[in-house]
């Protein structure tokens, strides 16, 4: 079955840089340029830029926009004023996670949601199905491009002033108007730059000219795994609940939203399984889908470029979830020892 892959406005730039392009969530995306490991290190030590224009942007506006989102999203939007952003979950009736996303409060009655590429359509349909009079939901993804600029020198290289995490502002970078979001998916300082699709090439060229290293989705995955950020579709999904996934902090259980009764019950009874982070004690690389002895399974696994060992996340029975618990992972038929660690797996000193 031939399926036409979508291309971001920066597709030709990636190809010209020699990127290895792969299909991802219906898009043709760069998985690496120079190599996953040097790109990963660039973000940990200096600054890297990722084209994440495949991600979705959904606007919700109107006098009842706030009320609509309060009833559909897990976190409490009353906690953020215009100019602030919040990590939150779109949940289903079973308390499962339709998507994890960041809500940007543009105004009292105006929100921008930046969502995973693979869930853009499902999110939009869900929001549309629940739309109420006085709330307008629009998918504005195709109008925009999104660049994540991440690393300890990212803000300095872009010529921006420091700002608090989960804030945003309109700025101009080398003549391009951008929304600068102090958010990211790497565990480093940095920002995500939202611009109009037609300005994407100018912005990308300007960011590279400032000495920021182009990075692919390969490094994005190893960076987020070291930081223990869950990946929707791997670590969390419609059949997993946020309490078991360690995302209870994103759930305002004192307000009403879809699936909250179930989440209150999981919280009070305690989850049967928990999503833990682990590092390998032996030379081996855990991978998605491998069994963990005692009834667990690996949901994300890779090699940590910073620690130079295998690392991962997975669900284990609650009794095995405490830090320092020894786990045994079935690596293609060979039992390999791992140890539960506190999240994040890697954090830069200072």
């Amino acid at each position, binding site marked *: 079955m031939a399926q036409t892959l979508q291309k971001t406005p920066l597709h030709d730039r990636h190809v010209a840089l020699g990127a290895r392009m792969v299909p991802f969530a219906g898009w043709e995306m760069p998985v690496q340029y120079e*190599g*996953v*490991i040097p790109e990963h290190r660039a973000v940990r030590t200096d600054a890297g830029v990722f084209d994440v224009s495949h991600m979705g942007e959904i606007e919700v506006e109107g006098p009842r926009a706030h009320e609509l989102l309060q009833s559909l999203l897990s976190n409490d939007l009353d906690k953020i004023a215009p100019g602030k952003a919040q990590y939150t979950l779109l949940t289903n009736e079973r308390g499962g996670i339709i998507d994890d996303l960041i809500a940007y409060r543009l105004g009292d009655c105006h929100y921008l949601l930046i969502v995973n590429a693979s869930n853009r359509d499902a999110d939009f349909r869900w929001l549309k199905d629940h739309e109420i009079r006085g709330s307008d939901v629009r998918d504005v993804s195709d109008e925009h491009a999104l660049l994540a600029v991440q690393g300890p020198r990212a803000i300095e290289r872009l010529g921006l002033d420091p700002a608090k995490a989960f804030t945003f502002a309109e700025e101009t970078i080398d003549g391009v108007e951008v929304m600068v979001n102090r958010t990211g998916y790497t565990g480093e300082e940095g920002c995500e730059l939202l611009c109009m699709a037609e300005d994407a090439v100018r912005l990308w060229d300007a960011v590279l000219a400032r000495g920021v290293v182009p990075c692919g989705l*390969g490094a994005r*995955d190893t960076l987020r795994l070291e930081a223990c950020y869950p990946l929707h579709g791997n670590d969390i999904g419609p059949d997993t609940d946020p309490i078991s996934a360690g995302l209870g902090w994103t759930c305002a259980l004192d307000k009403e939203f879809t699936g909250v009764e179930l989440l209150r019950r999981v919280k009070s009874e305690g989850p049967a399984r928990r999503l833990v982070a682990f590092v390998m004690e032996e030379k081996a690389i855990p991978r998605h889908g491998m069994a963990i002895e005692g009834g667990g399974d690996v949901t994300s696994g*890779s*090699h940590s470029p910073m620690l130079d060992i295998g690392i991962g996340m997975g669900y284990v029975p609650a009794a095995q979830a405490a830090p320092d618990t020894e786990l045994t992972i079935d690596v*293609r038929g060979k039992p390999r020892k791992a140890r539960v660690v506190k999240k994040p797996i890697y954090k830069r000193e200072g």
Partner: protein
Amino acid sequence: MAAAETYPDDLRYHEEHDWARVDGDEAILGITWFAADALGELVHFEPPAEGATVTKDASYGEVESVKAVSDVIAPLSGEVVAVNAKVVDAPETVNEDPYGEGWLIRIRLSNPSEVDSLLGVEAYKQVLAEQ
């Protein structure tokens, strides 16, 4: 640094992107530049045990990059007499020097006549051209 693309003409090749350097009744085995480049920087080599038997056309170990796992196919049959400990410790050696320091195992051939079925360098380049 990854090596530049080369295929030495003194090696014999297997179409699964493995090479053999035959020396009397022994052979040193490894993976080609093409295989190493396709995987990206190697971060793990799961070797066979010394003394184990490897069989032509069957997997004798695994190499892994950050993103992928690949079986390593034996171009020839025999008994493992040595495993390259340098590659076990520093798998990226394979990317840096796939035909030298980045060799994987040395075997004692159980059926030396299998060598005749392997590809010469020109035939292997033809396999690559058809990829």
